[in-house]
Each structure stands twice: as structure tokens, then as C-alpha cells.
């Protein structure tokens, strides 16, 4: 995902008129971190809100409500995002 985000970042820069191809790195930790953060939230939305919505009852029965699950995912994603940024 990090490498893909690097490619995406490169083509976005090219598309916006930056023609100094060699100055644009193939891998960018900033783009990778951003991509990871967004994808983790998007994946949670599609998997738990749409595909396996009933799975929430597993967590509800353990005393975890939807807000706690979303906040914990947000915190975990932010921590990993920060870790990727330090690469």
C-alpha cells in the first residue's frame, strides 16, 4: 500500500504540472501514512457497517458500543500513521 501510494503521489504531482520527475520520490512516507489512515477507516466502514453489520452484536455483547469501536480504530490508525511518518 505504501509503494502504491508513492506511485499515486507521483502521478498526482505530474498531473498537477510538476515535470521534474526525478525530484519526485517513488516512495513517500507522508503519502503512505495518509493512505493508510484513510484506508483503515474506509475498510472499517465497508466491512462493519455494510458487509458484516450483524457482527457488531458480538462486540455489543462484550460491552463495547459502536462509538468505542470507532474511536479505538481512529486512535490505533493515528498511532500507526505517526509510526509510518517517522520512516
Amino acid at each position, binding site marked *: 500500500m505504501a509503494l502504491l501510494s508513492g506511485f499515486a503521489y507521483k502521478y498526482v504531482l505530474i498531473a498537477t504540472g510538476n515535470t521534474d520527475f526525478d525530484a519526485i520520490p517513488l516512495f513517500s512516507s507522508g503519502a503512505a501514512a495518509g493512505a493508510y489512515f484513510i484506508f483503515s477507516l474506509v475498510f472499517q466502514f465497508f466491512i462493519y457497517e455494510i458487509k*458484516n453489520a450483524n*457482527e*457488531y*452484536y*458480538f462486540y*455489543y455483547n*462484550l460491552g463495547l*458500543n459502536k462509538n468505542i469501536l470507532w474511536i479505538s480504530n481512529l486512535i490505533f490508525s493515528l498511532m500507526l500513521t505517526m509510526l509510518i511518518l517517522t520512516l
Partner: protein
Amino acid sequence: MKKMHVDSVLKSYDNRQILSDVFISCEKGEIIGLLGRNGIGKSTLLKIIFGSIKADNKFVRVDSKYIKGIFDNRNLIKYLPQNNFLPNHVKIKTIIKLFCDKKNTSIIINNHLIKPLLDKKSNQLSGGEKRILEIFLIVLSNAKYILIDEPFNGVAPVHKKEIKNLIIKQSENKGFIITDHDYRNVLDIATRTVIIHDGGTKEIKNNEELIEYGYIRELN
């Protein structure tokens, strides 16, 4: 006061009032059979009591604790939904340990229906196997009150008796509210029966009242 007390429940969908005059209570040792026609609000009522959906208004108290949502009812109320809810990629024996204490874990893992499933994951089980496992998990969990929505759905007749015996045995220490369209199975084990009619709950004193409320046409 050692009981679960539910009243003042108001719930409407699209300007249609589903629940309006609900009073239901459950004590340890009781199995409340909750009956009603399709779409009358049985599952909605159970979800409101559990806290997984919001009501326009509700009052739920367990013993002396006021229950506002799911976070408040940990170890007090557990709910078995109509559809399978176990995560697909977790081993069954891990799930059992999450739900039950040591004593009940030992009961489940030594049960002849569950034992062959222990090393499998949920997505490797049939619908009926999942249902049986879910019933065991919820009924043998450490909660004081158990809400069960259509437990016999998809379960082979030969296993229904075993499930009924399990619920009766566990009701010595817990209170149950159970709903199922197979009403004979509910009446078999219920110590009290309540029907939802016109948005409200009415206690059933004899089976003829089920005909009066339009739930069944004749007694078999």
C-alpha cells in the same frame, strides 16, 4: 429490588407508532415468553432493552442500576440477535473464553454438540451449528438477564429439546426473555407469557387469549 424492569418505551418508524404501552419485568428464575405477529415490534423491543437501538423514550432498570446504553449493561444483559453474529476469522474456543467464565467454558467445551467445533472458525460452520453455538454462548454467559430472539430458527428438532433444557436449567440463576415464531417451544418453557398487541404488552393468562389477540386461529 432484584429484577429487570422495563417501561415507558416509545418507538416509531416513519410516523408509525410501533411501541407505545410497554411494561415488562423479569426476575431471576423467570422465563418470559414474548409473542406477537410479524412486524409487531418484538425484536425492536429486545434491541431497545439491550440498548443497541435507540427508542424515542425508554426506562430500563436492572436491579438498582438505570441502563442507558450498551456500556451500562455489561455483565447484566446479553442479547442473542436473530441473525448470526460471530466474527468469521476467530477460533470457536477463543470466542467461548471471551464470553464465559471458567465453569461455563468447561460446560460448553465438553458439550457433545460443541466439542467437534472447537478448533474451527465461525466461517467453517453451518448456519445451524453457528446458531447452536451462539445460543450456548449467550445462555451460559455471565449476564444476569438474557434476551433471546428466535433461538430455534435453523435448529434441528432433535437439538431443540436440549436447548430448552439448557435454558430451563440456567434460569435457576438468570432471568430470560425469549421470543420465537415457533410459539409452542416458547410456551413449553415460559413461566409467564406476554404478547405485544397494538404497541403494548399484555400478559397472557391462558392460551385462549392468544386467539383473542389474533396471534393464532385455533389451539392445537
